[in-house]
């Protein structure tokens, strides 16, 4: 066998092994992202709970907590992810404003206006979380026919990475303007 032919065979072997290795890596990543999560939970509230697997890739579990008496809704999404920096959560959460407005318009015909208040860092179950707060305004017509923009609810969204089980958690809570449930203290990674 000539040196050139040997070199060609060696290169082909190298390329083949490289391809097989990375295919196995891709399969392992697929297995990681589709591995079921232990869902994050809200503890200590007597809310009505609805839960479901939201999607399987990446594996995402949704739990909705609803209290009709307190007019509060808490949505907790647990998503299988690798470690994500807080800056990425911050950028992702800024979409909450548009998503919520569209959702309320399409599902309930509500034309509310969400106004961003600001972002802070909160500690949730020992993890550093990004928190964004919003005021929810609605335009109502009074008895004399005058229209007014009034504060009807408050919304907060939080996101953090749970390093002990490799999941990202996003929680959103929506409550009346006078209620102030201490949601952050009652959220758990699993």
């Amino acid at each position, binding site marked *: 066998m000539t040196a050139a032919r040997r070199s060609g065979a060696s290169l082909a072997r190298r390329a083949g092994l490289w391809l097989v290795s*990375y295919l196995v890596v891709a399969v392992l990543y697929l297995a*990681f992202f589709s591995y079921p999560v232990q869902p994050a939970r809200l503890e200590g509230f007597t809310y009505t709970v609805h839960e479901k697997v939201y999607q399987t890739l990446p594996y995402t579990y949704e739990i909705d907590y609803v209290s009709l008496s307190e007019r509060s809704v808490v949505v907790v999404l647990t998503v299988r992810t690798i*470690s994500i*920096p807080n800056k990425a959560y911050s950028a992702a959460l800024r979409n909450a404003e548009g998503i919520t407005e569209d959702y309320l318009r399409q599902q309930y015909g509500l034309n509310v206006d969400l106004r961003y208040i600001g972002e802070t860092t909160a500690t949730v179950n020992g993890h550093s979380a990004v928190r964004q707060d919003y005021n929810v305004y609605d335009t109502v017509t009074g008895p004399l026919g005058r229209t007014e923009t009034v504060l009807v609810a408050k919304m907060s969204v939080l996101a953090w990475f749970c*390093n002990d*089980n*490799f999941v990202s958690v996003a929680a959103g809570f929506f409550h009346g303007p006078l209620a102030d449930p201490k949601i952050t203290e009652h959220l758990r990674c699993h």
Partner: protein
Amino acid sequence: MDGAALILAATPIPILIYYIAMFSDGRSISDLFGGISAVWGILATFFILGGFPGSFFFPVMLGTSALGGFLEYGRSRKGWDLAQGIILGLALVAVVYLLEVI
């Protein structure tokens, strides 16, 4: 421990096997550093489980492989080794930039 964490820790193992096979063939520095980078990938999962910031994961992995490419080029003077160092070095800059900007 969550089973997914074990799967994540196992993802660099095929790459490690590949670099061990290549290193035993040619004793190349870039293959040695590729193997070190894969070992880091396995260990990093456990570091993150222990609370280590995950933002170190990709920069160390890419930086080690890029360094391997440059060191191998210093020995072999082959264009491919230099290209490996430059491409992985640029990927490292891109990852660090994204981690800062996002």
